[in-house]
């Protein structure tokens, strides 16, 4: 079996074997781990979807958004509104209608933002996301303000109402079943994003990232492609927000506040934004890191900040990039 590819990283066969192994482990997890660990990993998978979407813009199109909390929060609040004001409990309804809302807003925000690049793009995404934050914060009679809106799993149904969570053992059933629900969607999202990034469209995005001028001289309309990437990116992150809120049970304006956008960037860079799998790994690792940091010290932000400094200065290619490099060295130069 060939073990290396042209760039010195692991070959396709090896990668597929690895993916299969991980998938098996993920499916087996709730059978061997306790409720807490299962729920924790569910959070990790949700953030992985968010980071996957985010990285379409950063890693593949070369646009750093500092306002992705907007789509995550919008997805979460959409679901919460549907619970609060329409009495809906079906997860599928949350997803379908939540995605529509997020897609519309991403399209609008994206249209405004992609007319600029680099710093001004980042600032615009930040400013627009904070518009949503202040609305959530100030219009407290609609959004619950800082108290937020509750989304209890007791009224939730999955798979068109086939699965609900009432009665005894409901919490365990919820954690268990919701994990598989999220895992399934995570796999779908990963597969979708894989196809998108490896499609001619994905190649065009990378061309725009690498050399905007040349891409134009190939006949690629820069703004249109960036906008489409923005739309897709926001939608993925919005889906993550929708999936997050039943897990968290509550949505507050914190999820729209700009430091959360920073966390999304952090987790993507942690995993390595120049690779496909980087955001996924980064999100899962970041989730564990953050959880244990919060549990072990009051000053967990300091810890995360220190990690980020080390990451940026010493390991800019993130976990995946570093693994690739180490693997290349261990197996000899190609």
């Amino acid at each position: 079996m060939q073990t290396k590819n042209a760039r010195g990283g692991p070959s396709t066969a090896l990668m597929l074997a690895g993916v299969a192994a991980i998938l098996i482990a993920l499916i087996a997890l709730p059978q061997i781990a306790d409720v807490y660990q299962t729920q924790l990993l569910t959070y990790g998978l949700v953030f992985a979807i968010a980071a996957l979407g985010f990285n379409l813009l950063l890693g593949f199109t070369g646009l750093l958004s500092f306002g992705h909390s907007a789509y995550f929060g919008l997805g979460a609040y959409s679901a919460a509104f549907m619970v609060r004001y329409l009495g809906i409990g079906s997860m599928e309804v949350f997803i379908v209608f939540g995605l529509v809302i997020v897609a519309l807003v991403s399209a609008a925000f994206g249209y405004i933002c992609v007319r600029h690049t680099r710093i001004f793009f980042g600032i615009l995404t930040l400013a627009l996301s904070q518009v949503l934050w202040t609305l959530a914060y100030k219009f407290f009679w609609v959004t619950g303000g800082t108290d937020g809106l509750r989304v209890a799993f007791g009224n939730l149904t999955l798979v068109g109402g086939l699965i609900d969570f009432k009665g005894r053992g409901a919490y365990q059933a919820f954690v268990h079943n919701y994990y598989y629900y999220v895992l399934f969607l995570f796999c779908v999202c990963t597969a979708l994003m894989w196809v998108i990034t490896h499609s001619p469209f994905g190649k065009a995005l990378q061309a725009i990232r690498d050399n905007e001028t040349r891409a134009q001289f190939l006949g690629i309309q820069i703004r249109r492609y960036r906008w489409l990437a923005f739309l897709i990116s926001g939608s993925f992150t919005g889906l993550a927000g929708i999936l997050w809120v039943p897990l968290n049970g509550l949505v507050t304006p914190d999820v729209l506040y700009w430091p959360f956008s920073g966390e999304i960037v952090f987790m993507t860079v942690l995993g390595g934004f120049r690779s496909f799998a980087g955001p996924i790994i980064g999100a899962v690792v970041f989730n564990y890191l953050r959880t244990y940091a919060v549990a072990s010290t009051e000053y967990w932000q300091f810890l995360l900040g220190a990690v980020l400094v080390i990451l940026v200065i010493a390991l800019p290619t993130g976990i995946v990039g570093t693994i690739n490099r180490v693997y290349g060295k261990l197996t000899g130069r190609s």
Partner: protein
Amino acid sequence: MDILAIQFLNSVFYASILFLIAAGLSLIYGVMRIVNLAHGSLYAFGAYVTAWTIGTLAAGAPIWVLFLLLPAGAIAVAVLGALIEPTLLRPLYNRPEEYQLLVTFALLLILEDSMHYLFGGVPLTTGPVIDSMGTIPVLGLRYPAYNLLVIFIGIAAAGFLWAFIYRTKFGVILRATSQNMRMASALGLNVKRVYVLAFALGCFMAGLGGAVVVPAQAAVLGMGIEALILAFVVVVIGGLGSLEGALIGALIVAFVRTAAIQYFAEVELAVLYLIAAIVLLVKPTGLFGRA
């Protein structure tokens, strides 16, 4: 009419603070092309240091001593900046600017918890400083004289900065380096020294903003995060890298926000962000900015 006068004074007071923060942010960007996400946290740090120095360390000292200690926050933050630039920022100058953004975000996280650790979770105040100056009559109402001092400091800072940048030798060096770093370096200018001084000066301004605001407004956790967004709005409207822009932007933001809080409290912030977004759409470099 009297309410309007008070509102006017409040707006100018608020604008002075915003100007101090935004001028620092703009200076750092203008010279070093770095967007300092930790700038708000540095402002907060200045507020905390001053509040702690006056309110805790020197509590009970005569009033004139307390006033003398006001700039403590500004100086502390400037020193901090002089330490941060060579350690955290310099290693990244040859990297894409996304990395610089990330390291300043990391700095924000570190600073926020450092303030929590050093100063605790309870708001810190400066005790009798603001009351000692009393109030002055304004159209039948009474207005804190301290706020007028702050306005004066804001104007003085604007004047000083302008003179420093446009009238001194170092100012020329600063402007040359900001326009063309490579050329400046090739001409023999010590770019490293320019950068650390520019960063320290920008930090000083932020710290000064915090130092002068804290007698009027207690130092609380999270004030920096909120302040950064407002500073961004100011420099977006005024133009990143422009001193006049920071001044005009601060005035616009301060007046709009004060008026909005009075009449449409729910959307006061949203209005500001939307103005920023509109300016970015129409004139991306801001009112006074260069590309």
